[in-house]
């Protein structure tokens, strides 16, 4: 197998074996779900229901006219308890619809009527519309509204669709399991995305630590003109820009988007959601999440309701085997540390990882010794040591806005410096300056 890759990056320990062989387990509806009105990059939704309303599963509970946004749906049937507030994993407090489940998972009559559709009967606009109505956002973590990706400016031609099955974050295995268990649904999603974008070429990129997924996807594309490409297991292979560079040798221009070079990248889990939205008008109300970490009793992959409290997932995994030093929403390289177990799973939550004190990084910072490991690790060829300086005037000269915050620099730093955290500060300064001058 020829293996493709990108320049830079790091090789963290992966720990995928903790949950890679556990089949996706469907968790029942929790007693209550908390549906944040913003779970994506873009404009927040406004509530379309009121406290006391009865809602069916899949019913829209929040929407907006803004283009860069995605509606949110009830992920259980029941009664709207209140329009309240919740914290997101990143600490932001946002408005949320809190729904008490009646345990019946009753779907609305309208949704039931739309269940007979075929891709053949739909044009590109129909597909984009179906994707938007289903509230689909990027499920790899960034949560960018998916229909926006399929709507390039008129002068742009999309030629290639890449499905991202790299799953380069350590510990996470939800995409791996989806490729094993829902390969056909992924391929049918790819078909729909190709049609929505008018692309000719479809690729599925998978890291070489998942040979069984490569085999499953190759089997699934046998009667299709798509290619399954094997990539080196290296972090961050699944970062959009790095994946495109590795597979196509094209660089997304600095400050630009994959659209600028005619490419759309979607996560494999997103492709599954697209397939369901197109064929069954099914909104995004469930997702697969890996619950894992060396401080979790039974690491596993679970399919849960969007809005389920993180507590439900940890309960399903038997709780903690030892006191965790860190509980992370997302993967250990880019995810956020959380404190409150009652905050909800969102559309972009790919994992809940509990790390022991042995594994979690909590050593104190030492002086930078200019070893250049961060410079070599940066997949964007930035100079993290200078970007992380407190002297913002100096730091701003090192292209802060190009940083993708992958964390490779902090990972390799022998002095345990919080480089990414400091670079976020520099980025914020750069953004503020840009806004001032415009």
């Amino acid at each position, binding site marked *: 197998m020829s293996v493709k890759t990108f320049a830079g990056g790091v090789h963290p320990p992966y720990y995928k074996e903790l949950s890679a062989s556990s089949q996706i387990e469907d968790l029942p509806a929790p007693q209550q779900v908390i549906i944040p009105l913003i779970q994506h990059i873009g404009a927040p939704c406004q509530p379309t229901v009121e406290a006391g309303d009865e809602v069916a599963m899949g019913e829209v509970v929040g929407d907006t006219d803004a283009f860069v946004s995605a509606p949110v749906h009830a992920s259980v049937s029941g009664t709207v308890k209140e329009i309240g507030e919740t914290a997101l994993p990143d600490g932001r407090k946002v408005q949320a619809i809190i729904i008490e489940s009646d345990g019946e998972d009753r779907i609305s009559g309208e949704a039931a009527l739309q269940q007979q559709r075929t891709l053949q009967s739909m044009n590109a606009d129909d597909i984009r519309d179906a994707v938007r109505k289903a509230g689909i956002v990027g499920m790899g973590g960034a949560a960018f509204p998916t229909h926006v990706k399929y709507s390039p400016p008129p002068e742009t031609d999309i030629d290639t669709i890449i499905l991202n099955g790299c799953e380069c974050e350590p510990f996470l295995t939800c995409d791996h399991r989806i490729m094993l268990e829902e390969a056909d649904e992924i391929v049918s999603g790819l078909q729909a995305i190709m049609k929505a974008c008018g692309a000719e070429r479809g690729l599925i990129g998978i890291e070489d630590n998942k040979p069984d997924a490569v085999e499953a996807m190759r089997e699934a594309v046998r009667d299709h003109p798509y290619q399954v490409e094997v990539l080196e297991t290296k972090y961050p292979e699944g970062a959009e820009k790095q994946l495109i560079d590795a597979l196509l040798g094209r660089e997304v221009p600095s400050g630009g988007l994959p659209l600028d070079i005619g490419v759309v990248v979607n996560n494999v889990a997103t492709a599954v959601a697209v397939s369901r939205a197109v064929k069954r008008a099914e909104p995004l109300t469930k997702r697969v999440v890996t619950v894992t970490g060396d401080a979790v009793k039974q690491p596993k992959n679970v399919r849960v309701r969007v809005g389920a409290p993180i507590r439900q997932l940890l309960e399903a995994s038997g709780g903690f*085997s030892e*006191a965790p030093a860190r509980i992370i929403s997302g993967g250990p390289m880019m995810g956020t*540390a959380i*404190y409150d177990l009652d905050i909800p799973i969102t559309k972009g939550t790919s994992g809940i990882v509990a790390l022991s004190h042995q594994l979690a*990084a909590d050593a104190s910072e030492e002086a930078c*010794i200019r070893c*250049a490991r961060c410079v070599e690790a940066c997949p*964007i060829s*930035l100079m993290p040591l200078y970007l992380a300086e407190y002297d913002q005037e100096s730091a701003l000269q090192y292209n802060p806005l*190009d940083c993708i915050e992958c964390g490779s620099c902090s990972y390799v730093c022998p002095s345990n410096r919080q480089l990414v955290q400091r670079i976020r500060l520099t980025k914020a300064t750069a953004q503020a300056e840009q806004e001032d001058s415009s």
Partner: protein
Amino acid sequence: MSVEENLDKSTLTLTSSPHLRSPVTVRRIMTDVLIALLPAVAAALYFFGGQALAIILATLAGAMGAEALAARIRHQPIPLRDGSAAVTGVLLALCLPPTAPLWLAFLGGAFAIGIGKAVFGGLGMNVFNPALVGRAFLVASFPVLMTSWRWPAGAGAWMQQGFDAVATATPLDLLALEGVQTPYVELLLGRVGGSLGETSALALLIGAVYLLVREIIDWRIPVSYIATVAMLAAIMGTDPTFHVLAGGLILGAFFMATDYVSGPVTKRGKLLFGVGCGLLTMLIRQFGGYPEGVTYAILFMNAAVPLIERFTKPRLFGAEVDSNE
């Protein structure tokens, strides 16, 4: 069953991502450098015996004492644990002649850390390689003591008829003053006059291979440095192999010029830095007042690092082709 079982929120931390860290720490890097210096230290002990050990210990005492004192004055925790002062101490000791009095070794170690590092703000802040600052200070202040060589054990039957054992010269002195070239095999094994560590190229190379294999140093600086010296030697009509093996080049190229703190962080910058070191070394050796040029070549290039980095910024991913912006 409650999830709260085993959950102790008082020890749950909320730090920024990433939440995993590579096991390579400053301490481990410095330990690897010390391990890589072991063959050279062993060679020094073999050739020069107990005096070599005493010199190394005196230099270490000076360097680590100054490090501790500087931290004390600044009310900071004493950072000896990171091993960087020990590395400076051993490196400086390897640059000293086997006849060096112990007070000289101690003074050199103290100066290297005190003036070469602490006054700049400690680890990571110094512009120049501290060990070389120490050596340059000693050479300038005590030129006679710093150039009194003696034959190592079992050395140079080939030369002993012509030269007095006390006034032994280094191979570079011999070439510059007497026009006599030392055989390669003697240079490689270390049976020549010279400082504790620069005599045996072989012992240094074993350590260098260890540093490269452990990915502690990058190949670019030593390779471009040594290649430049060899090429210039050939162009100038002298023997390239001799110039590579003689003097402090191997020690300087693999252990001094590769110092993280005082060298460039960019890949192209490292190549440029090595070429500059090689150029200056040969200019000093061929045209300068000193027979050896490694110390000043590296110190001079240390000062040029900010400039080098400015012109060798890596090409930004997604930038216009070949733009350095």
